[in-house]
């Protein structure tokens, strides 16, 4: 091989390799340089979060319903066993009580974690403890004080379903482990407004080596990320009213809803029994959670939205409106009630054995005469009736409302075809006309129904937050005269001598309708006498001349709507008069 050939081919091969290296270097350092820079930072940069407090939930009067209380925790960092023992004994010598401390646990963590991970020594230090640590331990590099935030519900179970509670976020901080401020809203307003309420955590950066141990690395400074506190939420809730209602339910379980019919503002939604939402501000043991969940009272069940029951006589409002509007009866049409009527070959009884005699529509509402509504229902027919139920929102979802709802059933064509093979007999129709049988609804729907009546057919959607806009539903057109007739009946329910809701009487301005939902439960025999009782409904508005608020009471096994709901409504209206209407009186 010639000399010159050998040297040039060698140089050529070498040059090719050098060009490959050149381009690969160019690619790594210039084209992909930013990517590798980021990876190299991720290698050694660790982020220790600085917890941020969740926003406060206020009631309409600025009272706190739910807030985050700062608590200072003591952590051990970058510590060896010997080191930590010495520190702990020094802490003890300075009268810092470490009674719950588990040394084995701490040693275990020291052995099994990177030094940069913090180990919790004591939660929620007292002011005195903080002072001692601040003054006497300032030179110790191995301890760290961090503020965390505990969610507090000062009214305990009173608003539990409405306000909600927190739950674990599954976001364990790499440095501090479980932080309470890391929890997120699980249900209720806490969940609905979680994005607003949760703040943005801050961060402090530090450096670790390849073993994950913290190292100081001069020349490289990374700034802190400031925390951002969560936003406060101003609700329309009146927490004092909520408390009064909860108390007034006394031994009864059930749900009560109070709203302003003109603005849609929710003043109260009570579901009893409640539970203590504070339990969920910290990790809760599954045993304890199960115990509450499996308790026969079902405290986690939101009875206002997640339970649907037969409406009983309160549905007669819809039956009456439908009858008048469809011109099946006029306000003067009377039916004779002898105490029962025969439909097909079955005897359908009125609740009053002796009968009501001749009754027109308003009298029928006042006395809740079953026979009148059997007959009216038969005249109306099932299709017209369920059409009107839908118009009132029965069987429908209340949109834009941040709660899960169980819709219940109405005997619509669909339902009849699907579940009853298309067979719907007159007996069935009579039953649903008085709110029994194939008709169930939840408190929210019952409340919407009375709100529509109170506001003359114009329904303002329920809203929970002050900054929410007022949204009106399409006007439900009801003839003015017919409406007056219905209202007259509803006023009579409370104020007439024969009225079924006289227990709610306050000042002749309460109007409403009572109802009793028959309990035909398979397991009712298991319970004592009280559990055999029927559910009581009472839905009302006030004041009758110019309605402002609507109230709906559902009393589980409350026997009768009037007896169970009447006194509760009375207390609500007394409170409302005192706190919302006094100025009017003075004028």
């Amino acid at each position, binding site marked *: 091989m010639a000399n010159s050939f*050998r040297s040039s081919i060698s140089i050529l091969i*070498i040059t090719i390799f050098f060009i490959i290296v050149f381009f690969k270097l160019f690619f790594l350092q*210039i084209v992909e340089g930013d990517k590798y*820079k980021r990876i190299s930072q991720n290698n050694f940069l660790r982020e220790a979060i600085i917890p941020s407090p969740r926003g406060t939930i206020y009631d309409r009067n600025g009272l706190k319903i739910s807030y985050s209380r700062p608590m200072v925790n003591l952590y051990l960092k970058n510590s060896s066993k010997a080191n930590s023992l010495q520190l702990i004994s020094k802490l003890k010598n300075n009268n810092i009580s470490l009674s719950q401390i588990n040394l084995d646990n701490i040693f275990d963590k020291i052995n099994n974690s990177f030094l940069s991970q913090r180990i919790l020594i004591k939660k929620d230090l007292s002011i005195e403890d903080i002072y001692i640590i601040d003054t006497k331990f300032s030179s110790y590099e191995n301890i760290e004080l961090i503020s965390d935030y505990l969610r507090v519900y000062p009214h305990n179970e009173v608003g539990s379903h409405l306000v909600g509670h927190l739950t674990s976020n599954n976001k364990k901080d790499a440095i501090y482990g479980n932080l309470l401020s890391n929890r997120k809203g699980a249900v209720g307003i806490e969940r609905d407004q979680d994005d607003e309420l949760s703040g943005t955590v801050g961060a402090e950066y530090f450096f670790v080596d390849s073993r994950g141990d913290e190292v100081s*690395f001069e020349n490289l400074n990374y700034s802190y990320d400031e925390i951002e506190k969560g936003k406060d939420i101003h609700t329309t809730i009146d927490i004092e009213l909520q408390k009064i209602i909860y108390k007034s339910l006394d031994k009864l379980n059930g749900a009560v809803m109070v709203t302003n019919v003109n603005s849609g503002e929710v003043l109260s939604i009570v579901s009893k029994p409640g539970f203590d939402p504070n339990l969920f501000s910290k990790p809760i043991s599954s045993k304890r959670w199960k115990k509450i969940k499996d308790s026969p009272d079902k405290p986690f069940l939101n009875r206002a939205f997640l339970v649907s029951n037969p409406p009983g006589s309160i549905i007669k409002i819809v039956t009456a409106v439908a009858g008048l509007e469809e011109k099946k009866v006029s306000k003067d049409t009377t039916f004779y009630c002898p105490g029962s009527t025969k439909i097909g070959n079955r005897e359908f009884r009125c609740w009053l054995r002796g009968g009501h005699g001749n009754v027109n529509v308003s009298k029928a509402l006042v006395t809740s005469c079953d026979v009148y509504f059997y007959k009216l229902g038969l005249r109306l027919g099932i299709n017209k009736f369920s059409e009107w139920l839908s118009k009132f929102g029965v069987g429908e979802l209340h949109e834009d409302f941040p709660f899960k709802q169980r819709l219940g059933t109405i005997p619509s064509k669909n339902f009849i075809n699907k579940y009853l093979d298309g067979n719907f007999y007159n007996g069935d129709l009579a039953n649903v006309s008085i709110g029994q049988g194939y008709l169930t609804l939840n408190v929210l729907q019952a409340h919407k129904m009375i709100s529509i009546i109170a506001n003359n057919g114009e329904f303002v959607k329920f809203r929970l937050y002050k900054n929410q806009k007022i949204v009106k539903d399409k006007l439900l057109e009801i003839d003015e005269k017919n409406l007056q007739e219905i209202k007259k009946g509803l006023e009579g329910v409370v104020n007439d001598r024969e009225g079924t809701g006289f227990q709610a009487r306050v000042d002749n301005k309460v109007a409403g309708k009572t109802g009793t939902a028959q309990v035909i439960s398979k397991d009712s025999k298991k319970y004592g006498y009280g559990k055999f009782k029927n559910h009581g409904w009472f839905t009302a508005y006030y004041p009758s001349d110019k309605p402002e608020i609507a109230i709906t009471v559902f009393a589980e096994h409350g026997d009768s709507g009037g007896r169970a709901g009447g006194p509760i409504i009375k207390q609500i209206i007394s409170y409302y008069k005192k706190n919302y209407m006094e100025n009017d009186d003075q004028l």
Partner: protein
Amino acid sequence: MISFSFLDKPHSKIIFVGYFIILLGCINLLQIQANENISIYSIKQFVWLIISLPITFFILRLRLRTLKNISTFFYIFSIVLLILVLFIGKEVSGAKSWINILGFTFQPTELIKISYVFLIAKIYSELGSYSGSLIIKYFIGFSLFLIPFILILFQPDFGSAFMLFVVSMSVILSFSFNKKYLLGLILLASLISIPIWNNYLEPYQKQRIINFIYPENDPKGFGYNVIQSKVSIGSGKILGKGLGESSQAKLGFLPENHTDFAFSVWAEQTGFLGSLIILILYGFIIIFPLTFLKDINDLFLKVILYGLCSYFFFHFIINILMTMGLFPVIGIPMILFSYGGSSLICASFGFSVLALILKDYRDYNRLGV
């Protein structure tokens, strides 16, 4: 003013560039440990630099004929060391490759690569260049290669064995080139490599080769080194993080950062520009001597010059490709630049001989060595 006129002479350029690379290597290693201002590797490497200086001056005063005369002895001496190391060698990370002589630990594998070149140069030059000797050249070249190769495999040091293989093959094939023989060789090599794979390769070495072909297989284990090396190089970007700012080395993410991955640390500290400087310096020390090849008449000098250049080239290129993930991590440091006494002494010996040839080759162009 310091006069750089001494750099006019080709041999001075080689000496200067060689030591300049070593010096950059020392600077590179200055601050690679988290807790020390100056790393022990940098100091030790600098001491080796000082030690190698008199060797260079001594070599530059030698006559080229002396090199030819000591070639056989040089080779035998290396072989003896390779045998000795198997018995009295110190085991480091699974390979018995270190020998202790008068308090210095030394890697005989470094020496054999150079002494092989010397002996083969002597034999080839004595055989002359007529074509009938081609088969003899092959036979001798292979025999002289196989003895140390097998001894190194016994240690076992796969990386060094591979380097000996590529250096000797490049010499044998360049100076006794024949298509038929080349094909036969490739066939033979592939036949031999199967029993080598099955019997001689350590599991970790096999893993490294498998890992090279499928690097995404094992990002936490064997692939980790390469990934972190690429992160080091890439994160240097254009201008680098600055000397002493290699977070990858300081915080322990990049293993072997003073030996196999010394270049990655340099690239991280000095960026693309620094990497280019290294590329240019090596390009010079490898290519510049080769440009003299056509002017040299004596075969002994030609083989030595060619062999030494290929010695530098392969050590450099395989290491740099390794750090960039283009070649399996076979544990080869970057010659001159990485930390390591034996390698540094042998390499400075190598470029000193290159310089000596560039200085004196004209004296032998008529009569030979």
